[in-house]
């Protein structure tokens, strides 16, 4: 049996745009995957799994500058002699973040594009597209714009594209994330099908699919590590910080003052855009309460209204039907803006300035009652607490660091309440819990939104969920 993928002595370092050089991401990495094998690579966030996948697809360092050394061969052919577009039928990549792979305006067009690249006839394209849309439950969404789709639907579009192209090697990054149980089952079936080699990078929900794979490897210390299964899992847990104590359990809170945030009889509405088969949803919130020092979780499936409710709670959208109260006083939207900090899922929407130092001091400098020396002191303190370097450029920092920066910004704002939207996506549980603990330090009340039930269990406190269009406490 020949190898579908053979990597030997791979080293890679991202180009540094600042004064300090970057640490190498991989050093002497070896990996060999036989044809038809199914391999699971355990990869905690930030260890380079996305980079590795992009290198295999031939687009890194082409579009992500860095120095690459080593040999990579795909199905016997040396990667350095191939162009990335020639790999269309050899190797297909499904990203953890579907939005970054979209190029067309409709789902149908998205699947059609690579088929057009292959020069297929229109009939052949139509057959394949219809079949793959049906297989992944996207037939009614064929004309929909990707913006309108939920996270799970977007994942399914990517999977449908893979099936339509039918590459020999499938590289999947956290494919089970975001999918409803029904589609997870289908993905399992798809992966088992003959005729393809499968490499999956994953770091969570392992229990659901770890049994599918012939081999399990670990990406750590800049290379691939192969070990006996139990030891591997233990080491993986250690790398991900799972064996570290839950930072919230040992926390001592100092509650300077106690507040209560309440939403009463509020109705959250959202119109779905035209072109999809979805109904506009309505979410009834009879009573939602959050107290200082508490951590409350809100779970629910994709698209059920969690983010819409949060936007209402912090005054970005108007509250219909009822109102939001702080300490029993009805709050206007502007007042809510100033009292509730909402951390978007995407940190890049909340970072504006060229350096960490400027970012952290921006809000403080606008308040004239704070002296300049005091601003500097607080900024330094926050940077140390969240492990940030003041001169760094946010846009070139890794994702977990940008999340930490986002949290640090809000920490300095010192709001009585915080809403954390899907904090745990692309962060280790430990990193996410650390951020929650720090924000909570001065007694803030926290609403944590997540669709990961395992993560929610790590957080002790009241839990709300969305059932049949109503927000209820469990």
């Amino acid at each position, binding site marked *: 049996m020949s190898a579908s993928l053979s990597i030997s002595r791979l080293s890679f370092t991202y180009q540094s*745009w600042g004064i300090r050089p970057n640490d190498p991401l991989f050093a002497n990495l070896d990996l060999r995957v036989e044809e038809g094998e199914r391999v699971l690579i355990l990869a905690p966030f930030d260890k380079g799994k996305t980079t590795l996948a992009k290198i295999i697809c031939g687009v890194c*360092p*082409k*579009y992500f*500058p860095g120095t690459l050394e080593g040999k990579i061969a795909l199905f016997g052919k040396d990667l350095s002699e191939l162009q990335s577009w020639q790999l269309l039928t050899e190797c297909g990549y499904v990203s953890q973040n579907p939005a970054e792979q979209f190029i067309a305006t409709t789902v149908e067009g998205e699947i059609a594009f690579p088929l057009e690249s292959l020069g297929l006839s229109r009939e052949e394209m139509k057959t394949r597209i219809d079949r793959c849309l049906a297989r992944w439950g996207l037939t009614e969404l064929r004309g929909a714009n990707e913006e309108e789709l939920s996270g799970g639907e977007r994942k399914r579009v990517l999977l449908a594209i893979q099936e339509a192209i039918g590459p020999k090697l499938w590289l999947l990054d956290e494919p089970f994330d975001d999918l409803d149980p029904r589609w997870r089952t289908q993905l399992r079936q798809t992966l088992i099908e003959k005729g393809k080699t499968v490499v999956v990078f994953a770091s969570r929900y392992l229990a659901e699919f770890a049994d599918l794979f012939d081999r399990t490897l670990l990406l750590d210390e800049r290379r691939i590590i192969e070990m006996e299964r139990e030891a591997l899992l233990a080491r993986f847990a250690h790398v991900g910080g799972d064996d570290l104590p839950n930072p919230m359990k040992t926390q001592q809170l100092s509650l300077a003052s106690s507040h209560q945030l309440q939403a009463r009889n509020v109705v959250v509405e959202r119109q779905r855009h035209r072109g999809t088969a979805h109904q506009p949803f309505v979410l009834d919130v009879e009573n939602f309460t959050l107290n200082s020092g508490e951590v409350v979780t809100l779970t629910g499936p994709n698209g059920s209204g969690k983010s819409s409710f949060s936007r209402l709670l912090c005054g970005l959208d108007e509250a219909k039907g009822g109102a939001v109260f702080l300490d029993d006083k009805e709050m206007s939207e502007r007042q809510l803006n100033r009292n509730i900090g909402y951390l978007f899922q995407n940190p890049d929407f909340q970072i504006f300035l060229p*350096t960490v130092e400027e970012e952290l001091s921006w809000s403080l400098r606008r308040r004239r009652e704070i002296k300049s020396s005091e601003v500097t002191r607080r900024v330094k303190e926050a940077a140390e607490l969240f492990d940030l370097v003041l001169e760094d*450029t*946010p*846009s*070139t920092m890794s994702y977990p660091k940008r999340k930490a920066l986002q949290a640090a910004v809000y920490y300095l704002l010192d709001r009585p309440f915080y809403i954390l939207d899907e904090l745990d996506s692309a962060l280790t549980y430990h990193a996410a819990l650390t951020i929650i603990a720090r924000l909570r330090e001065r007694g803030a009340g926290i609403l944590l939104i997540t669709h990961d039930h395992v993560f929610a269990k790590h957080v002790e406190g009241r839990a709300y969920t969305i059932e049949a269009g109503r927000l209820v406490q469990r």
Partner: protein
Amino acid sequence: MKSNTNALKIAVTAVLTAVVVVFTMIIRIPTAKGYLNLCDVAICFIAFTFGPASAFIAAGLGTALADLISGYAQWAPISFVVHGLEGLFIALIVRSKSGEDVSFLKKILAGLVCMATVSFGYWALSALFIAGPAVALAEVPGNLVQSGVGFVLGLGVSMAVKRAYPPVRSLSW
């Protein structure tokens, strides 16, 4: 990064065009011709950060598409020419080898060229194809203000973006 691959050129042009469209449409102050908007901020940013070819296409196509989408399709060809040339001229003037700083004099020149191209270009083409010299004159003050302020803001934004996102240097073609 190889900046001369087809895919990168297409990607850069498409995204920058979209940027111009959004900047043109997102904040608007109504006037006679249409609206005062931020398109010149985007165009000047692109001209300062990218090369003449991208500036020409993104500026021209972007403003034309924005006109189209906003229901001013009849202005699209004129916008294409005027703003395309605006982007092209500024980019040509401030083009420097590998990131050395542009002299203050060149910046002033670029600013004047920007304002002149937009005001004169719109005046001339409107006079020819729309409504005659006198009416076309009415738009000139607005265009002068928009292009002038847009140039200054575009310059500022360009410097801020280069600091905030250093990899942008590798994207220009």
